[in-house]
């Protein structure tokens, strides 16, 4: 357990969209010790640090008296300032951040924060596809709906790409620092998921997080689309929705595009 005065290890949640990230954020955020920010953009800072290390690190180390370790610590301070503000506001000890795309920088964050902990949210890719096809998310650059919200094959490729990135991050970071949370487990038995995560995060075991709906949900940005679903009792109803929502043809397209990722995550056994 983190003691008062110690700098608390950060918690990063990431994974393909539609995999229960927001639900998990709300549950953990209702824990007395934990504050999980919604998408804050800190991943851009992690990317900037990676880019710097690759393109300018040597220059600064050799000629400008600035070691890579110092630079990494400076970026760490920036990220921690952003995430720490909310934790301080709420009187919580452990700051964290949830953003689907955090998986892209899990390994970078693991290196910037040697003691940070990571949660990789996963879900059956076929159900993710079914869920994505309901969305009308638009590319801000073109104003057009993303192809992964319109076409099953595109959605499957999108999901598989992120799932594979997440899997590589798991291997790179190691099981001591990253845990996989399956959407299906989270909605079937939230108490058990919470208990397992509490052990992993070394935080107090309490039922308080499961009562997160007793207060008004503080949803940010795109999370607001899910207000009614997140306000309703946690339900397994969406597990396996692909069987009724995807046509035979779409199911084949998904297997063709995402078979290996589905197998790697244990969703396809053959």
């Amino acid at each position: 357990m983190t003691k008062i005065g110690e700098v608390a290890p950060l918690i990063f949640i990431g994974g393909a969209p539609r995999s229960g990230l927001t639900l998990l954020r709300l549950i953990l955020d209702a824990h007395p010790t934990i504050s999980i920010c919604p998408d804050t953009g800190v991943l851009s800072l992690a990317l900037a640090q990676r880019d710097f290390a690759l393109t300018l690190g040597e220059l600064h180390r050799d000629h400008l008296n600035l070691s890579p370790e110092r630079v990494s610590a400076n970026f760490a301070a920036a990220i921690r300032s952003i995430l720490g503000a909310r934790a301080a506001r709420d009187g919580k000890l452990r700051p964290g951040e949830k953003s689907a795309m955090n998986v892209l920088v899990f390994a970078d964050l693991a290196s910037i924060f040697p003691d940070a902990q990571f949660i990789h949210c996963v879900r059956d890719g076929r159900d993710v596809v079914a869920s994505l096809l309901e969305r009308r998310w638009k590319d801000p650059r073109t104003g057009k709906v993303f192809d992964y919200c319109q076409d099953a094959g595109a959605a499957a490729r999108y999901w598989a790409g992120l799932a594979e990135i997440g899997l590589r991050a798991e291997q790179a970071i190691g099981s001591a620092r990253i845990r996989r949370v399956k959407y299906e487990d989270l909605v079937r038995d939230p108490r058990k998921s919470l208990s397992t995560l509490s052990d992993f995060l070394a935080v107090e075991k309490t039922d308080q997080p499961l009562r997160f709906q007793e207060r008004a949900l503080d949803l940010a940005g795109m999370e607001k689309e899910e207000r009614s679903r997140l306000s309703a009792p946690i339900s397994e109803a969406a597990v396996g929705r692909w069987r009724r929502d995807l046509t035979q043809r779409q199911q084949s397209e998904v297997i063709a595009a995402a078979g290996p990722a589905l197998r790697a995550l244990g969703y396809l056994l053959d």
Partner: protein
Amino acid sequence: MIDAPIFVGGAPRSGTTLLRVILDSHPNIACGPEFRIIPSLAALSANTRQLMGDTLSAHCGLGEEALNSVFANLISSFLESYRQARGKARIAEKTPANALHFSELARLFPSAFFVSIIRDGRDVVSSLMKMDWFEARTGERMAITTHAECAARAWVSHIEEARKVAAVGGRFFEIRYEDLVESPESELRKLFDFLGEPWRPEVLSFEKNETIFVGMNESSAQSVARGLNHSARGRWRRDLSTADKTAVKSVAGDLLIKLGYAHDQNW
């Protein structure tokens, strides 16, 4: 956070390296080789505020001032580290593209000083077209070294973006390369007066500065070590093709006239 940093910028090939070596030759100012990181951090600051500012404020307890401090502190960490290494009182940083971000930097550092060096755009373009500069990510030649129109656009934007900082209350000083070469003492006295620094004649002996060749990432290092170059002016007359001139006129013709480098479009 650094109190009154000096940010130096300008279109590449406008004398930015000459200027930074001169500044570094003042006993009170450290201005080493380009850091090349500040433009991307300034852009990240602006983008974060624009895209996430509302979320951060409404949902994360991070108001605009606090968010600005995050980026100011991050940029300061680079500046302060170098300043300490050099043991000088003040820090200045030159990266040409800083000019494109002066306004954002003024937001992050309200007490900063901004210096832009400008030069005849035709000479800038002709100099750019001779550079062997490659994009780090793709390995391809930079467009500003292969296409006159691109080069001219870069020239215009560095000058115009830099000038915008004055409109938002930033302390701004624009110096002309041609004037610096012709009358160095008179121009530099004005510059150091702007910066609030006493005149020191050793700045005129800048070619002896020991940091000129540090890093070897500044294309003009060798040229600066040879002292002021009086023969570079008007190089465009021999270097720019007719097609190049047409391209430059289309993008930069008006600004050349406004700055007094040309009287019309008949050059």
